[in-house]
């Protein structure tokens, strides 16, 4: 098969703004499921609410576009009723970490056998750019007009602390690496969490001095640091540049999982 066969071509072009990273994340996820050789009839995509959560609507499999924050609750139901199905969850930073925060940590604790792809654009994109739990300090949003004064969640650390079996982070610029990480996630029994730092040019870039899509991509590219390099700098006691985030595999372990395919 090819990714074309996983898409609902009749629904394209999609509703995302020009330059929105969500479309890229869909490409990478479909390339990953295609590489797994899964059957469309045995694969289910779920999501909550948000721009990111509209992704399953463009995919040619059974899917559930659920209520805000609850995709993982629905995914738990799907997995326990039909553990033979492959389950992939698309979510956003607001969907996963704000309203859906408890579902997230408990799905990780149970180590539910699903793969969660979070499109983290550090903002509520769909509703007009309100701050989310991942909006970085200092960032302008419609709810933080003078710059956010709160610390932000590191979603990967949350997933690791709560018990997920596989955790990785990449960006919408690192398309090949991201696809590989999603494949790793799909292969891992238990909860696989892949955070994708992505661009929302409309509601984040424009209010944060990144007018062009290319400015946002440049930001992602230049602030991403490979995990080994980060660890080396820390070990050597060297300073980490402001705004740096790690990319790569962050944990892989073998805790008991729930809902694994028989």
């Amino acid at each position, binding site marked *: 098969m090819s990714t074309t066969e996983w898409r609902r071509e009749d629904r394209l*072009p999609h509703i995302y703004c*020009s*330059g929105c990273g969500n479309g890229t994340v869909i490409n*990478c996820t479909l390339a990953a499921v295609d590489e797994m050789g899964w059957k469309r009839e045995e694969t289910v995509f779920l999501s909550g609410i948000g721009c990111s959560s509209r992704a399953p609507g463009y995919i040619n499999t059974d899917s559930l576009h659920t209520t805000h924050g609850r995709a993982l609750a629905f995914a738990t139901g799907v997995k326990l009723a039909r553990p033979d199905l492959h389950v992939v969850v698309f979510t956003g930073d607001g969907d996963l970490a704000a309203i859906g925060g408890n579902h997230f940590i408990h799905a990780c604790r149970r180590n539910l056998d699903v793969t969660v792809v979070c499109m983290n654009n550090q903002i509520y994109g769909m509703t007009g750019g309100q701050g989310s739990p991942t909006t970085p300090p200092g960032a302008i949003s419609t709810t933080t007009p003078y710059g956010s004064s709160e610390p932000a969640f590191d979603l990967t650390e949350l997933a690791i602390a709560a018990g997920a079996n596989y955790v990785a982070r990449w960006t919408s610029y690192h398309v*090949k690496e991201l696809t590989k990480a999603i494949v790793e996630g799909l292969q891992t029994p238990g909860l696989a969490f892949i955070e994708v730092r992505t661009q929302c040019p409309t509601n984040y870039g424009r209010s944060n001095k990144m007018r062009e*899509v*290319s400015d946002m991509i440049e930001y992602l590219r230049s602030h991403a640091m490979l995990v080994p390099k980060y660890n080396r700098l820390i070990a050597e006691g060297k300073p980490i540049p402001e705004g740096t985030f790690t990319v790569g595999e962050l944990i892989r372990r073998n805790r008991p999982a729930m809902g694994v395919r028989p």
Partner: protein
Amino acid sequence: MKLVIDEIRCKGCNLCVLVCPYRIFQEGTELNDRGIVTPVLDRPERCTNCRLQPLYGRLLCGVCQMICPDQAITWVDERPFEPHKVEVEF
């Protein structure tokens, strides 16, 4: 193989311009029928996938297609195959 941009899907974000190692995509200057400035292709026959896909039987490079958020980049078969004189500068 021939590289094509789907004018109906492309939203003119120019991410392809940013990633192609051969700079095949160039920022466009003219609005199309849908009011979008889509990139123009500069000697697309230089594309790795255009040249070598038939030989290897799989997608090569493909970074533009992967990053294109609007699923607008594809390759079509050329029939009959037109040989091109290709100069690739490294």
